[in-house]
């Protein structure tokens, strides 16, 4: 299994989100360390979204709509709903939130991101169906719009979550 290299790659850069219903699109977030990617896919209408969150909390930011989990998650979920997704029947998966650096006090933002996403979903009556969070390895993730497959690539492996 490999990640796709195709012109239909739509990239969610740091602090960005992508929502698509294009069946040949692959949504990608590259090189997640402490950041966290939330992937949502509605199997009925085949609408998919990928958000590349940076931090647990902060003021809403128009340049980076999903920079912060607490003020960005509704923007992301509402965009999905506006495209026809129903969150209650969608699969929700998350990856990232690693601790890459251990010196200098640890920069333990990954753990806080992991907790913040799960809390924000719980507050909205939602929960993750699967996750690959924590650890100390970077991850690139890819969500397939056509079938909802969520692939996670590290330096040593590619796996489907």
């Amino acid at each position, binding site marked *: 299994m490999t990640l796709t290299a195709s012109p239909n790659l739509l990239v969610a850069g740091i602090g960005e989100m992508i929502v698509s219903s294009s069946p040949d699109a692959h949504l990608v977030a590259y090189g997640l360390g402490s950041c966290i990617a939330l992937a949502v896919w509605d199997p009925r209408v085949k609408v998919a979204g990928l958000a590349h969150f*940076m931090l647990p909390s902060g003021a809403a930011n128009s340049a980076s709509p999903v920079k912060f989990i607490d003020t960005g998650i509704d923007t992301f979920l509402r965009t999905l709903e506006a495209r026809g997704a129903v969150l209650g029947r969608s699969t929700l998966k998350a990856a990232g939130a690693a601790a890459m650096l251990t010196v200098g006090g640890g920069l333990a933002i990954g753990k806080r991101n992991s907790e913040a996403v799960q809390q924000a979903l719980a507050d909205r009556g939602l929960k993750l169906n699967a996750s690959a969070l924590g650890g100390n390895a970077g991850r690139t993730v890819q969500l397939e719009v056509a079938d909802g497959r969520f692939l996670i690539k590290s330096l040593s492996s590619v796996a489907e979550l």
Partner: protein
Amino acid sequence: MTLTLSEAGQNVVAGTFGRAMARAGEALGSMCGQVIQVQTPVLQRCTASDVMAMAGGPESIVLAVYVGILGSLQGHALLLFAPPDAHRLAQILLAGLLGPGELPMESTADPLHYDELELSALQEAGNVTISAFLNELGMHLHEPVQPTPPQVVIEMAGAVLDAVLLDLVSDADQVLAARTTFSEGDRAIDGTLFVLPRADSLRVLLDALGAIGI
């Protein structure tokens, strides 16, 4: 906090960072026994995405030596190499320490595998380079700048950089990034040094340099 500097103030800061980057290159060159060329450093305000792009994109694989900066100036420093360049640098460093018969074989099978000696040499190279930079800056400050012990990480650049960037962008959209590229002629080793000060301690440095209000 956003500080607006006059052109003269910016020149003072750029000159100081330039001298510090040159000291860093000299320290690395002296460790290698080679002349290291240091490109004119670029000092700019940029977004997290810009920093990722400067490192070759978030998915490019790098060997990074990370050093946290504590004391009167706080922030982060990273020395980045593409894996093949890091191998070549390690070979040069170890050749100066060990006899030719004792030199580990240069691995061609797996560019992401480094033996313990190589990692140790590269970690020390990062430590020496970044410390030389900080010593030069520290000469202008009233209190010492203290580097943390170095940490070597072989990873996607995005994964290494995001932890550092997240520490800097919680209340700002931009960071101040100082960046330069080192190269060693014959063996074509390119490395990139990033120094990313925290915004709240930047004023201390600018005050010490006399860059504010000129």
